[in-house]
């Protein structure tokens, strides 16, 4: 076995690397060699510790000492004091901002309490295809508890008291939804799981179904008992083949174990689940559209009331919840509502899973307590902005959401705060944008999505979103007028007020929120015919920097429109009239002499 008695872990994440962690490793190795200890101590480069604000990070094993903001010059002291003499270097330890005490053991640092996995508790821990592993981690204990010791009413009371709210977007209290569904009597009732995850960039539902399908099966059974339903349906998009395969296996295995089917655990309660595939239309995430699609009708919404709780799938009382919502249920039953309400904010309890994407170093799937700030998510967990660029905005809630800016960085994230800021929780997609991202282009992207996904049933959404997109296209191509800004605002209001369903009502949000926070960018596009982020192709011009160009003629040879001219060994010029902005010259130039702005 290994001879090393100690390990020095140095963060090699993007943030720490740009803060010179390679040099730290080099210096540590040098001083280790000077002490003749290279065969006892091993230096390792790791992935991101997720504490980039205080980077570079150095951690020493086996004593778990966590050093922050280490500089290459500190290497000698670390080796001579900590490694040789076993004395911790006090000044490099993390100082708790509240108590001002130095903490050496990372296990005791607040920072590592930032992510708590409840919905994702088994993802990446168990083998999703193995029911025994789920059972070993208290799987199906919650349904056991419910069936043997609780009345349906008590189950609903626990969920109500927990404050759990729908994780699919709207944030409606789950317990209340169950109560409504339980009030309508019928010989047949349905529990539907909405696995039609459609927000661009969001993939937490897929990850739960792929990593822990039994938690959803168990929760649906609990819901069935609570509302008096014995039929379960999962509406899942056909684009998720692996999730379908694992979920189907989970259902089959549960049936074989007697955890689905008739007389579950000898209680006399019957419940079974079938899958229905969706073709991946965004509007089918809306519950009435989803139900129509399951019935084989067009995926179009209908006005509520009647709510599905009264008349849903095949006209029967139906309760629809999202995958992540269900994944929380077994834990709440086992640990109690008091435990759950201790996590989160006053009106948003528990945790939320976010799919962190965009201009961020640690793209990933994270689960944080409600009330965590954007700053913590972006800088501590996400590792900061890619390439050390400046943060501009974060888009939450997908095509129905809006963007949050620098002034919102310290706002605790929960359902109500995001709504108040003109965005929404949505299903938890979080797309981070840097100074290189154009906000008008971003709004245009989401509008394109909404236009594509509009079912066409109501005019405000079908025609209105199309008109919005057309105006945005004019602005990004340099043909915008100042009147367009007012027209955008008016049109947005009309669509919001008159569209039939959530898709249409929320479709103007990306435009409204970018107009509010970044009106200057719109004006720059309209008045100066300039895209400040350098993203809108039509507004870009290519230039050659005369002091960098050596006149090698490489660019003239690749230019398809002969827009570049110049004598050999003398600076060249681009004729902006002829230039079609294909970018071939930039790729070819080895001197960085061609820029676009």
């Amino acid at each position, binding site marked *: 076995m290994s001879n090393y008695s100690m390990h020095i*872990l140095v963060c090699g994440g993007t943030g720490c690397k740009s803060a010179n962690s390679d040099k730290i490793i080099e210096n540590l190795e040098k001083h280790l060699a000077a002490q003749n200890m290279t065969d006892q101590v091993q230096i390792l480069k790791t992935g991101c510790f997720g504490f980039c604000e205080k980077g570079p990070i150095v951690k020493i094993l086996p004593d778990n000492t966590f050093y922050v903001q280490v500089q290459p010059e500190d290497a000698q002291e670390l080796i001579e004091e900590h490694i040789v003499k076993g004395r911790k270097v006090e000044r490099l330890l993390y100082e708790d901002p509240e108590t001002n005490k130095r903490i050496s053991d990372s296990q005791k640092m607040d920072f590592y309490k930032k992510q708590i996995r409840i919905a*994702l508790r088994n993802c990446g821990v168990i083998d999703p295809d193995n029911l025994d*592993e789920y059972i070993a981690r208290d799987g199906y204990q919650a349904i056991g508890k419910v069936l043997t010791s609780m009345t349906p009413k008590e189950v609903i009371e626990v969920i109500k008291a927990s404050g759990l709210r729908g994780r699919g977007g709207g944030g409606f209290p789950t317990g209340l939804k169950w109560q409504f569904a339980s009030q309508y009597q019928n010989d047949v009732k349905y529990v539907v799981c909405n696995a039609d995850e459609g927000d661009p960039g969001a993939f937490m539902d897929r990850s739960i179904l792929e990593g822990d399908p039994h938690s959803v099966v168990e929760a649906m059974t609990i819901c069935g008992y609570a509302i008096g339903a014995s039929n379960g349906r999962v509406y899942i998009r056909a684009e998720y083949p692996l*999730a379908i395969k694992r979920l189907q296996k989970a259902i089959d295995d549960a049936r074989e174990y007697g955890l689905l089917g008739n007389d579950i655990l000898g209680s006399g309660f019957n419940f079974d689940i079938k899958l229905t595939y969706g073709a991946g239309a965004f509007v089918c995430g809306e519950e009435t559209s989803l139900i129509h699609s399951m019935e084989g009708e067009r995926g179009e919404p209908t006005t509520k009331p009647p709510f599905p709780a009264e008349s849903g799938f095949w006209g029967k009382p139906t309760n629809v919840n999202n995958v992540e919502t269900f994944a929380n249920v077994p834990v709440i039953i086992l640990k109690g509502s008091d435990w759950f309400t201790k996590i989160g904010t006053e009106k948003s309890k528990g945790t939320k899973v976010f799919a962190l994407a965009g201009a961020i170093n640690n*793209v990933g*799937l994270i*689960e944080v307590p409600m009330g965590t700030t954007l700053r913590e998510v972006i800088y501590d967990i996400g590792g900061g902005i890619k390439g050390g660029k400046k943060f501009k905005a974060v888009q939450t809630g997908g095509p129905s959401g809006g963007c949050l800016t620098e002034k919102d960085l310290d706002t605790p994230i929960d359902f109500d705060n995001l709504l108040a800021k003109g965005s929404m929780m949505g299903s938890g997609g979080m797309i981070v944008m840097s100074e290189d991202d154009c906000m008008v282009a971003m709004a245009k992207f989401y509008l394109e999505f909404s236009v594509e996904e509009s079912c066409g049933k109501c005019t405000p959404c079908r025609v209105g979103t199309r008109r919005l997109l057309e105006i945005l296209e004019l602005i990004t191509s340099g043909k915008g007028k100042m009147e367009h800004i007012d027209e955008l605002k008016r049109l947005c209001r009309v669509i919001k007020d008159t569209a039939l369903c959530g898709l249409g009502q929320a479709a103007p949000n990306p435009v409204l929120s970018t107009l509010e926070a970044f009106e200057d960018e719109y004006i720059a596009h309209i008045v100066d015919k300039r895209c400040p982020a350098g993203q809108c192709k039509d507004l870009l011009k290519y230039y050659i920097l005369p002091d960098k160009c050596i006149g090698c003629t490489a660019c003239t040879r690749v230019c398809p429109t002969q827009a570049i001219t110049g004598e050999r060994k003398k600076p060249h010029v681009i004729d902006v009239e002829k230039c079609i902005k294909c970018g071939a010259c930039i790729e070819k130039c080895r001197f960085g002499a061609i820029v676009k702005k």
Partner: protein
Amino acid sequence: MAKIKSLDELIKIRDQQRSKVDLREKGENIDKLIHVKVAMATCGIASGARETMNYIIEEVDRQGLENVVVTQTGCMGYCYAEPTIEVTLPGKEPTVFGYVDEAKAKEIIDKYIKEGELVDGIIPSTHKTIE
């Protein structure tokens, strides 16, 4: 598998499973068991997790390392570092490695699994999971 007929039976099965999830497969070797979990969600697979898992299974087999169990699991959340694997040596905390292609997998098998010697590319744990 016979049907589970009561909560008591379910609890009995849970307790058995806790102590012997792996014993079933590896018999008496449980004390020396090394568990390798490969994150096999769609995103991991798209980044090459299936190739990595197949390689590890073949390589472990080829070298006759009978105490190594390789299983799949869901998303660990470290999307930026896929494919990711978690290795648990007997009596030690699980260690996650990122960007595990075949070359990295070979290094992990030869150094960490066989010699207990850590290699570059550890992904520090950044979250707590409820028990």
